[in-house]
């Protein structure tokens, strides 16, 4: 409804050509609704994209969480494996260090028939001179006899790991006594110095 008052043209003071009274005009017309449908379409697309995006993000997060949890189980399994291996490592290291102790080495050496030689002889490399008189080691001249009771190692109890004893040589048929001096073959190695 228009409120505009129509202004009738007055007879007095009017220009020569007095126009006739025009019929009431409607100045306002409703705007032509030319494109309603085209404007509605973006609203659905945007909504679909937004909801689709949310769904994808949720899905991705779900997949990541599943992967992470699966990884947690793998980590746990690996850690428990690592613990087991560390324990095995430790048990073996303990055995190794006990076997490397001097008491065990000397015990094994003696069982193999080895005798320490207290006689020190030097070989001078510059001219091949032998300083001292080489003598074969004999049990009588050994500097010490390894007596387990005197310097004990309770880690080797009850029995230290001992190599198979060497069969008694004295029962074998006597052979010619070997020449104690071993002649050097070839050229002496000379020290590489700069």
């Amino acid at each position, binding site marked *: 409804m228009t409120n505009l008052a129509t202004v009738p043209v007055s007879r007095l003071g009017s220009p020569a050509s007095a126009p006739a009274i025009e019929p009431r005009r409607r100045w306002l017309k409703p705007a032509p609704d030319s494109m309603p449908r085209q404007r509605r379409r973006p609203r659905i697309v945007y909504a679909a994209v937004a909801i689709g995006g949310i769904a994808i993000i949720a899905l991705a997060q779900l997949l990541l969480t599943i992967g992470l949890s699966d990884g*947690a189980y793998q*980590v746990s399994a690996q850690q428990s494996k690592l613990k087991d291996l560390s324990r095995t490592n430790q048990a073996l290291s303990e055995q190794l260090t006990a076997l490397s*102790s001097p008491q065990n080495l000397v015990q094994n050496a003696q069982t193999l028939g080895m005798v320490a030689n207290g006689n*020190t002889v030097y070989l001078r490399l510059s001219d091949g001179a032998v300083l001292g008189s080489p003598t074969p080691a004999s049990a009588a001249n050994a500097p010490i006899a390894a007596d387990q009771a005197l310097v*004990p190692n309770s*880690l080797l109890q009850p029995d230290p790991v001992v190599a198979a004893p060497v069969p008694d040589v004295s029962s074998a048929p006597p052979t010619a006594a070997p020449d104690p001096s071993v002649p050097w073959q070839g050229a002496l190695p000379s020290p590489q110095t700069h």
Partner: protein
Amino acid sequence: MTIAVLIIVAVVSVFCVRLVDIQIVQADSLNATSLASRSDSTVTLGTRGDIVDANGVVLATSILRYAIEADPSAVAEFDRPAADGSGDVKVSADQAIGELASVMGLDPAVITAIVTADPTSRYAQISKSVDVSTYNAIRALDIPWLYYKADQSRTYPDGSVAGNLVGFVGADGTALAGTELTQNACLAGSDGSEVTETGEDGVAIPGSTVTLKKAVDGGKVQLTINSDLQYFAQEALAQRVTEVGAESGTVVVTEAKTGKILTAAEYPTVDPNNIDATDPAYRGAKVFSDPFEPGSTFKSITAASLIDAGAATPASQVLAPYEYKSGDAVIHDSFYHPDMRWTLTGVIEQSSNTGISMLSNNMSVDQRWDYMNKFHLGKPTEVGFVGEDSGDILPGGVSGPTQLDDQTVYNTTFGQGLTVTAVQMASAYQAIANNGVRMPVQLFEGCRHDDGTVTDAPAPSTGEQVISPQAAQDTVHMMESVATTGYAADALKIPGYRVSAKTGTAEMSNGSGAYGGAYLTSMAGMAPSDDPQYVVSVTIRKPVTITSGLAAAPVFQKVLSQVLKTYRVQPSTVPAPNLPTTY
């Protein structure tokens, strides 16, 4: 329409109120409850540091042990998967106990007693510590009512080798003796704690571990000891001590140029793995803690002081009687002889008490004590070992040497009437061997931490000139006569090397102010005499079959030979000077 709106608004507002209540009002308490139910706090152990020798050989290390605990209220029959995979097998409690007993090497009745003592209890300890292989075997049994707790324990791979120096820890892990105690601040680790959130099945939720406190591992202590040489010295000493029926003995080997202790052996020695096997009196390090009257080995120190003060030379002459009296003092030699025309060299070679007493008159009492202080006697060495004794050069608690009676004043010239420790004697001989420069005694190289930093390393020192180089060399040459022409010469010969040594036979106090019939024999010296590298000092306490320095001589010779061999010392090329012993 308005009613629907109102209903919707009402429902939504109820939800809003509930939301605010949960998310804001009760948030903290709900979070705490949830965290408490899924978080798992664990203690991360800080490992105690290792003790190693000069070459890195491990002398003490930490290992894991497990405590086996049971839940008595849960001891019952359980199911176990059959070995051939054909379903579950029912295992009764007794059968499980039997299997457990056979794995642990215990009597099943013992385990049954522990487990049935209080059937309502949730905790009973079956074993305080089992080793790793036993633990694995027990776990393989898959008994559901057993619980395991990991704990650190200490092991000493070399047993009693250097046991006196390394020390030991108690059952609860506290250090009780030796390096374990002396260097505890370095060795001790500190436990950490961390909190992890876990799922229902115990698997940790990734990224949820919070370290409340980081575990710190202990540092590694390196000793200057050579463990192979220590083993050799311990064996040689132990064999000789048992051979002569003695009570105990010590061997100390130091490097002349640096003052580092390469061997500090004693017999008996504790095996830190098995402390109870040794008498409590011998569980420490007597090389540091047991002072004794050194006897004639002290004469070298007196002679060195005399020469440095200009009061005598190796050729100084003295007409030495068997008995010498001066003031209230009466001094005898150890063997009867007519008046002998000896030089200072001869006095040293023959170990004449009267000779050295008479020559000491050329020095004032204060001067002699000055030298003793310079040799660092009467005070503890720089090592700072736990229980270390300082020795006593002013017996009776007197404030100065001038207050000592005449007898004590003369007795100290030949090493009676004052006390020293084995390490102090070795250190004094080290000064004589090193051209008069005394190096601080060193046993510890320092504390090496996990990140590579080294703390507590002894400050590098150029040493202290105690006597002049000439006085030191003269003393070494005089002592050489003991090894070439003295009564123990045959026992001291090391082919290819010039050896200097001094014998000693000290009378031991009977504990009530007088000397009893027991002796402390000793031998101290260095080699090679042309440029001494190593000092060896041996003592044997209360020998029965041989009561002279000959008791200690074989140990001295064997240990010194082994030292020279180990460190590839070149044989001597310059012949001995053979200073005159008589005039």
